[in-house]
């Protein structure tokens, strides 16, 4: 495979070593990301423990319906990503291109729905820092809840945006036939990253939206 040979960088013995190194690098990067979100989850745990009732009440102000739709959208986008990786491994060009495109479309849809939610919170004066109603009951604890909501979903959204940009590049290269069953590390690595961002949301959704849903 000429593309594969061209892709070998000078510091490596062979493509196998290069692929293993890149993959380990991505896993370690995800560890870093885990700790980055870990601090936010810790802050969430601390304040939910401090203000249990207020957090439950504030959680009811989130639009669980839109959140649920977004969860489904993101899971489907991960399916697209998995299809793309499978396509790259087996040389299924159509599957590769379709999977990547699906991930981009659904990722963008997620961002749009998230934007709608943000806008609603802005309208309802639930956006600390820009527009927040400090006259409401338990304003302080509610403010902390919404601060955490925007911090956690905001950092997540930044990651997803980076993910979409990344997958666009991969899609472009896949279109130009840069990948083959012998060499498709970038597809696999962006897949890993995509699934990581997806999993973070899987935790965010119940923690933020579903605190008080059973009542």
């Amino acid at each position, binding site marked *: 495979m000429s593309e594969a040979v061209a892709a070998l*960088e*000078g*510091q*490596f*013995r062979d493509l196998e*070593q290069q692929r*293993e*190194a890149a993959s*380990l*690098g991505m896993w*370690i*990067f995800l*560890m*870093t*990301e885990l*700790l*980055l*979100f*870990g*601090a*936010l989850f*810790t*802050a969430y745990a*601390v*304040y939910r423990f*401090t*203000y249990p009732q207020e957090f439950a009440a504030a959680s009811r102000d989130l639009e669980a319906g839109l959140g649920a739709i977004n969860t489904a959208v993101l899971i489907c986008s991960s399916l697209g990503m998995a299809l793309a990786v499978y396509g790259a491994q087996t040389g299924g060009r159509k599957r590769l291109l379709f999977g990547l495109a699906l991930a981009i479309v659904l990722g963008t849809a997620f961002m749009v729905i998230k934007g709608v939610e943000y806008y609603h919170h802005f309208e309802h004066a639930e956006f*600390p*820092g*820009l527009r*927040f109603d400090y006259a409401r009951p338990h304003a*302080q*604890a509610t*403010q*902390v809840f919404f*601060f*955490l909501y925007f*911090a956690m979903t905001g*950092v997540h959204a930044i990651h997803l945006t980076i993910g979409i940009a990344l997958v666009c590049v991969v899609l472009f290269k896949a279109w130009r036939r840069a990948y083959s069953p012998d060499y498709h590390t970038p597809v696999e690595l962006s897949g890993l990253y995509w699934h990581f961002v997806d999993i973070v949301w899987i935790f965010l959704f119940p923690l933020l939206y579903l605190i008080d849903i059973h009542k």
Partner: protein
Amino acid sequence: MTTNVVETEQNYLNVSYGVRSWLLTTDHKRIALLYMASITLMFFVGGFMAVLMRLELVTPPGDLVTSATYNKLFTMHGIIMVFFFLIPSIPAVLGNFLLPMMIGAKDLAFPRLNLLSWYVYIVGSVFTFWIVIAGGVDTGWTFYTPFSTSSSNTHVIPMTLGIFTVGFSSILTGLNFIVTTHKMRAPGLTWFRLPLFVWAIYATSIIQVLATPVLAISLVLLAVERAFHVGIFDPKLGGDPLLFQHFFWFYSHPAVYIMILPGMGVVSELIPHLARKKIFGYNFVCFATLGIAFFGFLVWGHHMFVAGESVYAAMTFSILSYLVAVPSAIKVFNWTATLYKGSVSFATPMLYALGFIGLFTIGGLTGLFLAALGIDVHVHDTYFVIAHFHYIMVGGMVMAYFGGIHYWWPKMTGRLYPEGWAKLAALIVFVGFNLTFFPQFILGYMGMPRRYHAYAPEFQVLNVMSSAGASILAVGYLLPLVYLLWSLRYGREAGANPWGVKGLEWQTPSPPPPENFAVTPVVTEEPYNYPSAAPGVPSTLQEAEVV
């Protein structure tokens, strides 16, 4: 370029010339030198602030600078020295240069990422310079809330962004080193044949990758709270200021080990090689290194004994802090046992290594005072703490850094440094350091608080001693700058292995060729495998067939 009559060997320094060839290099050896130049600049900027502080403290009243200026001086001194000098010092300079050579690789796993991390560092540094010029920050390097988010009217937000940025440089370097250690080792180089410096850099990298993101996100939260007047740490708005301290020290205690483990790694190289003896208890040193990295994550609460954490948390953190002393002590015993009956060379690097052992021991033992709940309440926020961590960071890490720079200077530059001058400088540093910081233990124990520009008259004698020591120390640091630069031009040619030691990095010419080794080496024995009797120096290198 290659028209010389006498054909010179191609090495990483003469392979190409010009600013572009340096700024766009992906060679780990050149990037190491880029880092060395940048952190040297930061070291002297941070040092200059220390000089101003010591000048102020010569007399009891605050007469040289205002208290506001003094607050900014100790803040910027701390920020620059910690984030822009100590953290990148040994990993980014010596680690970058040596890691691939010690494991017989051509480069790090991700050379372009390596260059990127230097640029990220530069962006953070430019930010810092801008903030210094614009007026500085006065929160202390710890950025405690709510002062940093609602009271301070200095440039807190840009400074947190600068540290956020430089943190990513640290993360990327750590990631690169971990992958390199796992995947790029030469044939035959098993984990327990790795030089101890590699183990130290590996453990440090794990801390960098796992701890730094927590600081990064905490600083972002802090900046958002300050910029938009929303509450996450501010008690007025329902936040918890103690949470910030937890986050901050969750990074910054492990960061202490980012700042000492690489120093221990350097000393673990200098001692066996320059004593021509196998390291005593190789496995113990390995596991002590990993143990320090692991336990280092569990002790952050010892910074908050008087900040309002529960007494049970305080007791737990106190006991865990004592546990860290065990692997640290194991290392000190192993180094000492290695020296015993070795044929010890008292060259400059060894002087620094011996200085390290002594000063690190003092710093470590006084750390146990501070880990003890009762004593910490008494000496918290006094000069005792200042003296303690300067013994670790300056007496430990900076000594090790200087020792390492001298030891590997011939490899990096192909030139020998002037031994007489170097020994003199090492002596001056040792004397100056102790004169600067030992009186501070006494001052702290007597009750002089840290971070004030004025003090009670009875503290003056010890403060004058400390300031005098600082001026001696400054000479000790300036001397190497002069003679090392001098040696670049006038130093004697070093040859491949001027120390006559083992270790893969010495089995290739100095300065090394761009690809480090003409032929990928095959390793057949453990490191420091010196014959037990005499200073014989056989090679560890057997040449492999092809790449």
